[in-house]
């Protein structure tokens, strides 16, 4: 699948949480978009990733 423009491979049945863990991102500090749709945090563990998914992740850092 494509994550932020780069091709990545995952084990079968990986979900959004697995992806965030692999990228070392905190699930509470991100916006996740899969195939142009924003994924609600509540369904990160249910949403299984498919080979043809196009995923964009935006992480936020502190300061303001």
């Amino acid at each position, binding site marked *: 699948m494509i994550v932020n423009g780069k091709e990545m491979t995952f084990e079968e049945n990986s979900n959004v949480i697995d992806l965030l863990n692999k990228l070392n991102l*905190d699930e*509470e*500090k*991100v*916006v996740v*978009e899969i195939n*142009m749709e*924003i994924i*609600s*945090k509540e369904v990160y563990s249910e949403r299984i990733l498919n080979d043809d998914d196009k995923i*964009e992740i*935006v*992480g*936020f*850092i*502190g*300061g*303001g």
Partner: protein
Amino acid sequence: MKIYVNEKEMKFNERKTAFQIRDEIKPEGDIVILNGFIIKEDSKLEENDRLVLIKRGEKPNEDELEHLLVSRHTPGVHGKVKNAIVGIAGLGGLGSNIAISLARLGIGKLILVDFDVVEPSNLNRQQYFVKHIGMQKTRAIKDIISQINPYVEVETVNTYLDKSNIKEIFEGVDIVVEAFDNPKCKAELINTVLTECKDKYIVAASGMAGYFSNNIIKTRKIRDKFYLVGDGVSEAKPGCGLMAPRVSIAANHQANTVLRIILGEKEV
């Protein structure tokens, strides 16, 4: 011909110059602004030109003041921003700067939300004064805006924003501005607006600490209706503080993005 003089529509039978009208209407006017630009030399006028005549130091009456406050704007901008409603989540370094820039533009209405009070350590980057220390930020910002542009309608909400109240508080706004400090709050607001308030724009910021280069702070369009300002990497943490210059650079990237959205410029 039709000319707007101090924002009042006036009709003239023959073609006039700017200084002819000044001499007829306000001979003591020593500042002549034609279509947002101060002129020193006389200029022929075109249909629908906007001429503002000011006597330096004179206090204008209330009818004139609102228009005079924005007489240096690009023509046509004020009419559009006057109809806009913008919500700002957080009134710290980002939010206080954004609120003031939008107030100077003469935005129609601002909905300003924060739960906190002004502390001395805020004054290194936030637009408050020593007299505001201990005051709710919502009250302090309202005080400042009233002294900049009293024609901006300001609604303040003194509360902690989270997903339980975001939708309701920002119900009436066209654009939500994310101006929090905490990255979890940033993510919660942005996720909530993108999933539950799909008709609204959101303009957020991430990465503006320290004194790194000006030029790595960018505005990116992440998706339709979602814009993100910042360098994406300079996190506020021990050893890397938040200071006025870069925080206000980011804040005004956000403010200009709001202005551009209102004026129909959707690309960055």
